[in-house]
């Protein structure tokens, strides 16, 4: 597997412009001859599909939901960063680049991060032109708020539903292109495999989730915008349908998978109430601006929080990190919560929870001020937990939230499989070992509106259009394989529902490959996962047939892929014998319990090559270079 990042030469601030000036393009008269498949209709997929269609390409867009508007980007709450410097507080492209690089703990590709920061401002302009109603100040100009881990106010927002508004913007552009006949939209359709001919991606095989029909679609290039894989933990903040299938299938067909062990665990979710919980609901990180996080000093303290006197409360973040206090970065907050709970200080029925207390903020700033800031979040919490944060502290616990790892891509966002591109959360490129708040949507839209529409031309222009259609033998073969796999799932003769195995996998992954990891636990997981996989294939029952709307079959197929992918994730976490960003290896920490990087041995992207299920994967490395910003130890203490 060859890893050529194709990063252009020259000073970092000129790389992207220079690249556009020198890249090969497809002319407007030729574009309608090229077919491009986009899988996924979230922020990355919808923006890419609509932008390419508007340029003239013939686009086919696929999503498993019943409408493209339901992709999980819709649930992003907080906001989107852009280096506009509207607040005159010293923001710049360099500073956004710096914050993202530092937040990622120096495990991202510098040139990609710079490009992301550079394109951030254009995203806001684009969204506003589409009618995205960003919050405005009294004078009518755009408002900003601050977000964790940075020293400037650069986050743009629409109430607590920035994701929905940005996605509606991207989806309206998509709707227009669908109406114009430039995009053929396939809803309730799931990718089940990729068709590769002579080393190039030539199309996909999908299943119509309503009729069960399996069909092939040929194209000159395929773009995966299929999101992240945190449902490998079963319980996460992701939607139930989020899955690794598209990227895993691509990986099995030859695309390198980069840094699968980098998963962000969000510190402020509502703790699970019981075994059958289907999802963890995120509470906005902004709550940490005014809430104080604590646990009782005494183990197993059963008193109501109000009855625990000040002297018996352990405000562990404030004590350990005096400068940032409750506003330490996400990974630091998550790890500390797990630590205190592991010590037996956790609260709530499961003992996996810490208090987030607004008592002091309400006393100091007044109930009205706090109500204006967090009223809707308090209502949301009360609806789920049936306790009012106005009267008693919230309980929170970390939840898997975002996967920084993904398919390896070069500067053009092309994977190691020629003709296959990956954008948004599905690729690995911009967030290193940890993602900064309010930057996921920024990356999706930068990739979709501004990068892929141009860079895909470089690949397409080198190849004639329409070389292969779905009559090619490779399509027949792949379809057969897909049908066999679906048939095998339906033929299982066990009696247990799919969910049982998903919960088991989630527990293994959360225990051994979650907030903190160690070699022993990871080896243990690598032994346990194949056993679980075997049991799944023997003991699962998938009811119904393949020729119907069959949600158990959908879930079973996705879980079968997670059961293979999970092993790779643990291999990667074991191989990365250092701590960085969200990847905390207990063996490598500073005296203060902070992540301890090993730049000498691990300043690289780990790219894995599939060698067959039950075979160890092969590791390839892309060395990371640090020219614009020298390596430095992350420090949020002073």
């Amino acid at each position, binding site marked *: 597997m060859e890893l050529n990042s194709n990063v252009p030469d020259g000073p970092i601030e000129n790389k992207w412009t220079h690249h556009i000036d020198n890249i090969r393009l497809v002319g407007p008269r030729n574009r309608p001859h090229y077919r491009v498949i986009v899988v996924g209709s979230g922020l990355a997929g919808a923006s890419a599909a609509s932008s390419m269609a508007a340029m003239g390409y013939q686009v086919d867009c696929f999503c498993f939901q019943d409408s493209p508007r339901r992709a*999980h980007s819709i649930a992003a709450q907080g906001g989107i960063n852009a280096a506009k410097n509207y607040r005159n507080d010293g923001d710049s492209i360099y500073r956004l680049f710096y914050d993202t690089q530092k937040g990622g703990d120096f495990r991202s590709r510098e040139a990609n991060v710079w490009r992301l920061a550079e394109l951030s401002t254009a995203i806001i302009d684009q969204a506003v032109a589409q009618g995205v109603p960003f919050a*405005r100040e009294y004078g009518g100009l755009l408002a900003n708020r601050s977000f964790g881990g940075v020293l400037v106010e650069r986050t743009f927002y629409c109430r607590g539903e920035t994701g929905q*508004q940005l996605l509606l913007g991207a989806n309206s552009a998509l*709707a227009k292109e669908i109406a114009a006949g430039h995009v053929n939209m396939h809803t309730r359709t799931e990718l089940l495999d990729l068709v590769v001919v002579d080393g190039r991606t030539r199309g996909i095989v999908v299943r119509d989730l309503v009729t069960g029909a399996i069909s092939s679609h040929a194209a000159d290039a395929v773009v995966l915008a299929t999101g992240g894989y945190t449902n490998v933990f079963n319980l996460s903040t992701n939607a*139930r349908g989020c899955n690794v299938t598209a990227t895993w299938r691509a990986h099995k067909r030859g695309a390198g998978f980069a840094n699968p062990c980098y998963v962000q665990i969000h510190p402020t979710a509502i703790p699970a109430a019981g075994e059958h919980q289907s999802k963890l609901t995120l509470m906005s990180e902004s709550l940490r601006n005014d809430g104080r996080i604590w646990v009782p000093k005494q183990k197993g303290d059963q008193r109501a929080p109000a009855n625990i006197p000040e002297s018996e409360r352990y405000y562990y973040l404030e004590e350990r990190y005096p400068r940032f206090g409750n506003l330490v970065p996400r990974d630091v907050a998550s790890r500390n919560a797990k630590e205190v709970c592991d010590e037996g200080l956790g609260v709530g029925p499961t003992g996996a929870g810490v208090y987030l207390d607004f008592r002091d903020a309400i006393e100091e700033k007044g109930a009205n001020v706090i109500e204006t800031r967090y009223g809707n979040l308090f209502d949301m919490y009360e609806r789920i937990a049936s306790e009012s944060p106005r009267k008693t502290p919230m309980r929170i616990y970390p939840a898997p939230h975002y996967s920084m790892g993904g398919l390896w891509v070069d500067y053009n966002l092309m994977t190691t499989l020629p003709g296959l591109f990956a954008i948004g959360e599905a690729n690995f490129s911009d967030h290193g070992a940890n993602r900064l708040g309010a930057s996921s949507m920024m990356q999706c839209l930068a990739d979709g509106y501004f990068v892929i529409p141009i860079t895909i031309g470089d690949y397409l222009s080198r190849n004639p259009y329409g070389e292969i259609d779905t009559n090619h033998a490779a399509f027949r073969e792949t379809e057969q394989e897909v049908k066999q796999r679906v048939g095998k799932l339906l033929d299982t003769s066990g*009696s247990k*529902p799919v969910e049982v195995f998903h919960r088991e996998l989630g527990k293994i992954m959360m225990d051994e490959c979650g907030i903190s990891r160690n070699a022993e636990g990871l080896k243990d997981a690598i032994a346990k996962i194949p056993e679980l996989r075997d049991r799944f294939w023997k003991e699962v*029952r998938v009811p119904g047939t393949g020729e119907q709307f069959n949600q158990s079959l959908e879930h079973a197929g996705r879980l079968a892929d997670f059961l293979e992918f999970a092993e790779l994730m643990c291999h990667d976490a074991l191989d990365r014998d250092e701590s960085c960003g969200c990847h905390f290896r207990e063996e490598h920490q500073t005296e203060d319990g902070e992540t301890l990087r090993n730049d000498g041995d691990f300043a690289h992207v780990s790219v894995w090559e599939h060698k067959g299920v039950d075979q160890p994967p092969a590791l390839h490395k892309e060395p990371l270079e640090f020219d614009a910003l020298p390596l430095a130890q992350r420090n949020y203490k002073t």
Partner: protein
Amino acid sequence: MKFDLEIWRQTQGDDPGGFVRYPVEDISPDTSFLEMLDILNENLTSRGDDPIAFDSDCREGICGMCSLVINGEAHGPKRATTTCQLYMRHFDDGASITIEPWRSRAFPVVRDLAVDRSAFDRIMRAGGYVTVHSGPKPDPNDIPVDPAITEKAIDAATCIGCGACVAACPNGAAMLYTAAKVSHLSLLPQGQPERYERVQKMVDRMEKEGFGSCRNYGECEAQCPKEISIDFIGRMNRDLLRASVLEPIDLRGDMETQ
């Protein structure tokens, strides 16, 4: 807690369908409504029966994928709440609960409780956008927008496209949905150039999709999980009237053959 569930089962759109009774027990009050159905489905699967199909995805009230008419109300008894955010503690122990799919001619049943809401997407495609390409745009601060107008636009744009308004309406009208979509853009300066063409095309599409007419029952507003006001329907009607008088467009090309 235990419950007596009466659930609509239907193998596909053209089957007659009917109610089937399912008792469930040992349900914790902290279980969400959909988790209760998950538990029922796991039990059905374990004992060799077919689980019940229903749509859901984000399970945090924003994707709009979940539905269900529960005891005659879209998204159940709790105001401003989607089914995925409804908890069993909102029901009495031992209660009978009737669960049906969205009922509307324009939303055919896919299976059991899942319906096809693609008519909504077709209304959007008729004009629910501002025509812009991806690329350099003016700075947003070049066009100041009164924050009160922005807030009102978000009040409309907060629609999650779930279809509860249609399910709640005795006529199966999609006026609240269409009005929310039209108003979001017609309020903002960016939506002005296409304002009158948009409203005519979207309303025309809505009518062709087979939704009923608005009779001002107000059920849509009462059952909307995002509490979108029917004032937007009035706003859309005013725009439509103004458009048809001042800037009528020829929709004959879009007419469907009889």
